């Protein structure tokens, strides 16, 4: 039996009658890297918003680690170790790179409502923050403000910040979008490395990345699950081919040999 960490049943989100996500059944195995792919507008980001409670579902149930989290608030979900990144790079632009990561580490103090204390107190997290920055190749950038980083570095910073929470499960929304080749390779290597001991749910358009990283893939089109399985199985599926044909030669090409 597979140990499922996250599962949804009948997950549906309607925006004024338009079903962006409809009746999605998703099962993510603990410790796996699970890919969520599909054409633009398929409902991938909406799924992430539902799973992390940034949007309330119209219908359906979300279970994480054996408990029903459908009614929780987003901050609560994050505290349970289910942490997301965003499709559009999400850093704190006017804070330094170090402060960005430290903000995640600072969560370990519990609440930070002590407005009368000096922020010097947070120096205790500097070593850990620097270690995380080193992991993503940002050591030399620590004292810059995050807004000054080139795009690829911002995405790396986001991953470092997410990792700082030591999440049980990470939801990454197109971590390599808009990156150059070297950056993509670095992020792929990084995700592979940090996935050890965690579960990762990954939205990704770059199918090479998906093929290289994911153990299981769920294909979404128009809000519905079209196929699920490993890369070979999914890419052989004629419906998936039809959905992708013409939009991405990579998958169409690779399936011809199959």
């Amino acid at each position, binding site marked *: 039996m597979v140990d499922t960490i996250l599962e949804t049943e009948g997950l549906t989100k309607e925006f004024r009658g338009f079903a962006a996500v409809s009746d999605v059944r998703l099962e993510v195995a603990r410790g796996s890297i699970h890919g969520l792919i599909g054409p633009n507008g398929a409902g991938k980001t909406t799924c992430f918003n539902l799973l*992390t409670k*940034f949007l309330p579902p119209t219908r359906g149930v979300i279970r994480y680690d054996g408990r029903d989290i459908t009614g929780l*608030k*987003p*901050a609560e979900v*994050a*505290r349970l170790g289910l*942490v*997301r*990144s*965003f499709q559009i790079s*999400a*850093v*704190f*632009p*006017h*804070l*330094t790179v170090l*402060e960005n990561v*430290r*903000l*995640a580490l*600072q*969560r370990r*103090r519990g*609440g*930070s*409502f*002590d*407005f*009368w*204390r*000096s*922020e*010097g*107190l*947070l120096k205790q997290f500097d070593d850990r923050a620097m270690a995380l920055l080193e992991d993503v*190749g940002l050591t*030399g*950038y620590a*004292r*810059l*403000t995050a807004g*000054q980083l*080139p*795009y*690829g*570095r911002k995405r790396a910073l986001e991953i470092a*910040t997410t990792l700082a*929470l030591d999440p049980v499960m990470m939801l990454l929304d197109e971590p390599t979008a808009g990156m*150059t080749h*070297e*950056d993509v390779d670095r992020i792929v290597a990084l995700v592979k490395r940090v996935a050890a001991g965690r579960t990762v749910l990954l939205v990704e358009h770059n199918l090479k990345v998906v093929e290289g990283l994911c153990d299981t893939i769920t294909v979404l089109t128009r809000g519905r699950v079209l196929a699920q399985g490993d890369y070979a199985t999914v890419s052989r599926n004629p419906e998936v081919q039809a959905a992708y044909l013409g939009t991405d030669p990579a998958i169409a090409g690779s399936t011809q040999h199959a």
Partner: protein
Amino acid sequence: MADTAISVAAPDAVHEEAGLFGFTRAQALAFGVLVAFVLVSPFFLYPVFLMKVLCFALFACAFNLLIGYVGLLSFGHAAFFGMGGYIAGHTAKVWGLTPEIAIIGGGAVGAVLGLGIGWLAIRRSGIYFAMITLAMAQMVYFFCLQAPFTGGEDGIQQIPRGRLFGLIPLDTDFTLYWLVAAIFLGGFLLVHRVVHSPFGQVMKAVRENEPRATSLGYRTDDYKLLAFVLSAGLAGVAGGTKAMVFGIATLTDVHWNMSGEVVLMTLVGGLGTVFGPVVGAAVIVTMQNYLAEFGAWVTVIQGVIFVACVLAFRRGVVGEIGNLLKVRL
């Protein structure tokens, strides 16, 4: 993007390590100038005028805590400022308590009022947040107009300055000035501490990217509410102090005009800068004093300055200076 990308960052762009009390070197210098000015000016300038500036400067610093560091535009801060004045006035005049208790009372009631209004307003963001604060402040205005203890149209008149701690008489303006100066500097340092505290870090994170802060597990509403309460409390202290200085508490200070004025002061001085609100308050109060003879035109002139600031000096006076000198002020 290769590793050489780091060269894009000029040295001045590097975040300056904060030293003593969270002040950078430039800020410590500016703070020195501010303290020197506060200490020396009453020997040259009219103390009542200076006290007025300091009260408004504290009010603007309180307002800036919200707009500048949490990114929340309150359009109802007159409610806390004006109510602080009424409470201090009533405490000193009717209950005959000492001035420090009157002012603390003004701050406490401002904070409690802030808890209520803030709790309602933080449910919305952007323009809706501003609208809720404005609407709630209007309700406070009508309450002050109707409630018996505020004296309606007349306000509370002839508030006694009393004796500080029941000991030091504050009858002369020169003596009172030192109390006002101490309150101002204390409030200013408190705001600075809040901004540079663990709480302040989260506050800034909320300003920069609230969804991201949420995704890191912060209950952002709680942080916004605490910031709102602190800001309202300080605004109440500023209003209470002003009532003690002038001996009156009137509807002017709860009117929405006053909410607009504090926005103006903060914008003119420089939103999100530590010293901007102080400079902005000084500029606006000075202008009002010297332009008083123009009557209704003061409003027009203020309006023009407002528009000029928004168009030409988006960073405000202090913000522009900081940008020129490449330092954070």
